[in-house]
């Protein structure tokens, strides 16, 4: 097995199996009718997709880290987050335990090398 990458869940076949029902439900949120059905009766909707107790609790808590722990893949989870108008900065802030403003500021700060990369001078190939 390959080593783990700190702070980085890798979506493997094991995750894909474990999270199948959860991801399938989130995939269904491509449809506006399905998003409305979920909002109208969350319990019934989760039951229809056969979520296990861990997945159901993570959905109820709107907790990104718990959803990933339950096998969720972020691309499908983003469709779930979209129901509540949350974007990937909101998800990032929640997972790293900072405010959305602080998360965005960290992203901006990472742009310190923008001009160097435009000029191709950060690496020698």
């Amino acid at each position, binding site marked *: 097995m390959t080593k783990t*990458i700190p702070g980085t869940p890798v979506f*493997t076949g094991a995750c894909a199996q474990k999270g199948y029902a959860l991801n399938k439900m989130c995939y269904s949120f491509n449809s506006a009718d399905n998003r409305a059905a979920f909002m109208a009766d969350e319990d019934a909707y989760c039951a229809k997709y056969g979520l296990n107790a861990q997945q159901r609790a993570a959905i109820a808590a709107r907790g990104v880290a718990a959803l990933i722990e339950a096998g969720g893949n*972020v691309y499908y989870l*983003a469709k779930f987050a979209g129901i509540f108008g949350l974007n990937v900065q909101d998800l990032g802030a929640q997972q790293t335990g900072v405010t959305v403003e602080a*998360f965005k500021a960290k992203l901006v700060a990472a742009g310190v*090398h923008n001009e160097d990369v435009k000029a*191709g001078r*950060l690496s020698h190939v």
Partner: protein
Amino acid sequence: MSNIIGSVSTSHIPAIGAAIARGVTEEAYWKPFFDAFPPARTWLTARKPDVVVVVYNDHGLNFFLDKMPTFAIGAAAEYRSEDEGWGIPPQKATRGIPELSWAIIEQVVEDEFDVTTCQEMLVDHACTVPLQLLWPEGWDDIRIVPVAINTVQHPLPSAARCLKFGQSIGKALRAYKEDLNILVASTGGLSHQLEGERAGFLNPHFDDLCLNALINKPELLTKYTTHEIVELAGSQGAEILNWIVGRGVMGGEAREVLRNYHIPISNTAAALQVLEPV
């Protein structure tokens, strides 16, 4: 015979599509990204493309985990987009060119790439956002061949395999009987990570190495395992595999026509690179 005019590789972040839809591309946050496109469009217009081979990854519109092809090639007369659940408007359908798709499929299978062929295929923002960026007035005159790479569910195809897959597609394009000007559009990246305690990870040093290597030494990138690429570029930075396929499609020696790089757009190091054959 067909002619590969060059490649345009660009990030495909959904937020870019949302910014276009909201008409905010001139705002300070977005301008450093969008300002790179008028010169790219000038370059493109002069080269009169007929067809675009779009190398991208699907984010749960056409493919789900029930069936997840490593490499899939569209062979449809038309490709529609649909609601993806995160609020970006679907785009007008794009025309396909099934004869060329099948010529590519014949070649890549002969070269031992056992692809999934798709006569019905929805294309998501990763395919349509780059088209919007290159043809803001619409792309009715353009036909596409969508090529979808699995960058979502591990194991991912290796960088070496991706480069060879691209080279095989390029062979098919160059042998195609019709006189067509073909653009390669590779989409996604560069470094970014959406999940985990490392969410927000960005790596300009590795991005610069990728951009420099893609010009004329793409084989340098094939020494990295997909696990190493995730470590260096972030989980979703694995989309660099699409760019490696695209570079293989173009083949030969290249010249960098233009490059842009801007952190942050959404959670991503957004980049544009235009290459042309020399």
